[in-house]
Structure formats: C-alpha cells, structure tokens
C-alpha cells in the first residue's frame, strides 16, 4: 500500500520478451512469499524459546486461527464494519477534498494563503486527533469516520488542486465563448479534465485511509478489525492477533489492486 502521498514510479521498461518476463516475475514474487513465510516460521518457531509468546505468532498457528475467527462468527462482521467505515470516511474525504482542491486550484492567492495551515495539518498524524474526535463524537463509528477522512483528505486536495492548475486555459475560453456559464464550465470542462488527478488522489487516499483505519478502531469502538486485534490480545490469543494482521494485510492488498484496476494506475504525478 502506498502510505506516502506519492505514486510508485512507473514500471521499469519492459523487455520485448513480455510473456517470459511476466512468468518469471510471478515466479520471483512467489519465491519471495515463500522466503518471507520461512523467515516468519524460523523466527517464531525455531529461534524463539518454546515458552515464548512468539510461538503463538507462528504461521502454523496464525493461519488456522483465521478459520477459527470465521467459525466464531466475528471475522466477517468485523471485515464489513471496517470496510464500511473506510468507505464512509473516504466519501467524506472526497467531497471535502474535491471542493477544497477546486477552490485552491482556482485561486492562486487562496493556495498561497492556505499553504502554511495545510502544511501544518498535513504533518499532524490524524491519530493525534483521536481524543478530540472521541470527545466530540463519542464512542462509535463517527470518530473513526472522522479519523479516516482526516487522513485521506490531503492527497485528494493536493491532486485535485494540481489537476485544476494543469487545465489548458484555452478549454475554459472555448467553453465561455460557446456561452457556458461558470457552473456549466465547471461540469463540462473542469470536472472531466481533473478526473484522472482526482482518481489518483483517491487511490492514495484509499491506502492512507486503510492504514489509519486499524489504529483508529483501537480507540473508542467495539467492532472492526482494529478492535479485534485488541480483543484477541486481551484474551491472550496471540494466534488470533496474528490472524487479524494477516487479514488486514491481505484485504489492503486486494483493495489497492482493485483501486489500481478501477481507477487507472495513475499516470499523473502527485504533488
């Protein structure tokens, strides 16, 4: 998952032997997974003393624990709860981020004026707001929506503003000379023109939102994957802790892959 507000560089130029490259790349990646699981096993089962709690984190305990969690009937409700919170938080971030990005992309003076404040807010970890959010919204979904939105809004703001600034002024002139009102110019020229930028911002926001979601669910809620980690720890069920971590990583990878596919790989540069 991309956690920084940048985009991963484009893939290295492909060799003409694309099919072979594709197969060998998949082979390499499978090999890396096997090596990672092996290291995981060696650390938790061979190096750790037999009495250590690390034993519980071993793959041979953690992977079956996923099934146990599912059998308990908590895994899927937790996944849906977490995905729902991510979705609502992202929706809030998109609405606020696109509106703000349109404004600061359109008016240079607003961009200049807002820069120090936005820079400050951007560099405060969204989780720092957790006590404020819980104080304001109480226990439940809403502080999590807030924290996810607070984290996810920045890449959307920055990419939207960059998109607005990169619009060919001639397009706006052409629309205006055809009789478009400012609102019609917005819907017929500006919004379609910034779409790829907004989608890039959304993909980055999804990554950040997912990363923030789990710790946000450790504060002031009683459901979701983040809560399930703490709950399992309180029951000293470390195999289940590791199982939830695996689920989080897996879901995150799937979400990112889906976003890449649905939203394009992001051909525009983020700020």
């Amino acid at each position, binding site marked *: 998952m991309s956690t920084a507000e940048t985009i991963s560089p484009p893939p290295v130029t492909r060799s003409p032997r694309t099919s072979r490259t594709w197969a060998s790349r998949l082979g390499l990646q499978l090999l890396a997974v096997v090596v990672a699981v092996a290291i995981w096993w060696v650390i938790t089962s061979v190096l750790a003393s037999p009495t250590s709690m690390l034993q519980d984190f071993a793959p041979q305990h953690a992977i079956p624990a996923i099934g146990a969690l599912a059998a308990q009937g908590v895994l899927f409700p937790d996944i849906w709860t977490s995905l729902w919170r991510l979705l609502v938080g992202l929706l809030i971030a998109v609405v606020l981020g696109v509106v703000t990005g349109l404004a600061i992309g359109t008016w240079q003076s607003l961009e200049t004026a807002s820069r120090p404040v936005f820079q400050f807010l951007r560099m405060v970890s969204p989780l720092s707001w957790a006590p404020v959010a819980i104080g304001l919204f109480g226990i439940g979904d809403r502080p999590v929506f807030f924290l996810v939105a607070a984290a996810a809004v920045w890449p959307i703001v920055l990419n939207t503003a960059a998109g607005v600034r990169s619009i060919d002024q*001639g397009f706006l*002139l052409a629309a205006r000379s055809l009789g*478009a*009102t400012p609102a*019609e110019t917005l819907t017929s020229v500006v919004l379609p*023109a910034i779409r790829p930028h907004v989608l890039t911002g959304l993909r980055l926001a999804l990554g950040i939102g997912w990363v923030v979601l789990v710790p946000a669910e450790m504060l002031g809620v009683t459901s979701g994957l983040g809560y399930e980690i703490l709950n399992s720890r309180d029951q000293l069920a470390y195999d289940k802790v590791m199982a939830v971590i695996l689920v989080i990583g897996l879901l995150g990878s799937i979400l990112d892959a889906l976003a890449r596919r649905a939203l394009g790989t992001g051909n525009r540069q983020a700020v």
Partner: protein
Amino acid sequence: MGTVALRLTGATKRYGDNAVLDGVDLDVERDSRLVVLGHSGSGKSTLLRVLAGLEELDAGALTRPDADDARGAVVGTVFQQPLLLPWLTVRDNIALGGRYRANKARFDAAHVEELIDLFGLRAQADLLPSALSGGQAQRVSIARVVAVRPDILLLDEPFSALDPATRRSLQVWLRDAAAALGLTLVMVTHDVDEALYLATEVTLLDGSGRAAGHWRCDAPTGHDDLADHPLRATLLAGYRSQLGAAAAS
C-alpha cells in the same frame, strides 16, 4: 449588401499606456466575409475578442443594430488552436455547445450530424481529438462553433498553425462552407493572400490601433489569380509602410 449585424464605434482598448485599439469604427454586414488584416501586435486579436464579447472596451461601443431579440446577435469564436476537449469524441466535441443553456433554443442534434457530413468528418466522428490531423482538428473546432448557429462566426487566425497545403485547402473549404451555410464571417489574419481569397471586405489595421483602410472585393478569386488581384499591391504597400514604421519607431 445586407444589414449591419455588429457595429464598433470609436472602439478604444488600452493595456497600460499602450493603446491597442484607438478609435476603430467597423461595420460587420450580414452575409459578408470581413477580413481584418494586420501584422502581429496590430491589435487584430484584441479587436476580435472585443467583437466576441470576451473583452470590455475602455471607450466606444459595440452595438448589434439588427438584433431580432433581446439577446442580440449570437457570436461564435474559432481560435488559433482547435482547443478540442481531449476526452470527448469528434461528435461530442461538435455537440459541446448543446450542453449549455444559452444555446438550447438554437441547437439540435440532427444539425450536428449534418455538419459532420458537410465538414467531411464522417470517418472521424467517433475518434478522439488525439487521432486527428491539424487540419481535421481545426475543422472540428469550426463545426463546434457553427453547431450553435451563430449569427456571426469570428475566426482568430484559425489556419496559422497549419502547413501551407492544408491551409490552402481549408481556405477553399471555408469559403464554400460559409456560402453553403449562409454564414457571416469575421476573420483576422496577417496573410494578404488569405485575406484576398476569403474576403468580401478587407480592413487593414495600421499598427497603431487605427484602421488604415477598408476595401470591398466582391468578385471571388481563385488561388491562382491572387497574384494579379488589383487590391494585392495596395494591401502589401500598406503592410510594408507600417512594417517600416514599426522598425523605425
């Protein structure tokens, strides 16, 4: 000639201390093709933007004497660059004006299809602008403006970015299309031969914001006869004198 569709009286436009237009009078007659000729920086693009209503005058007035409704004559502008929206197909680009409330009463989708045929764009109708040649793109941009049925079509050096052969074929095509559609044209250019080929009237700007002369040339000429056109020597002389003046100043 017909009635006056658009009239400039004493038009003055300044940028700082520099008067780009200085008391220009201009009548655009309906069904005429007026070409405003001038070298770069002579204020011809400013003049066109004033006519398009995209620029306010500092002094003088723009009136629409024969306007038949409160809104006055509808003016459409074609720019130097095609400025096609890259995410829309040729057809959707031509239909762009139909999305705007200002054109709702004048626009219909069937007309777009007629224009696609008339402008020779049938094979390209479903392509994106990136797949077009420069000449095709400029034809689409003219069709986009014609689709909102303007009373007057303004063209700001629309062919200046094209190669000479394309440029010439588009001049032929534009003169025919204007006749077929009954368009009133106002075009600015720095190309004397383009002016002579397309114009029924020529106004020469003198480089200091005033009109140096106005001529009618009613008989249409072929490209091959332009060298002998009676007005050619006059216009070129006017051109040279102001280039000399510009160099001396």
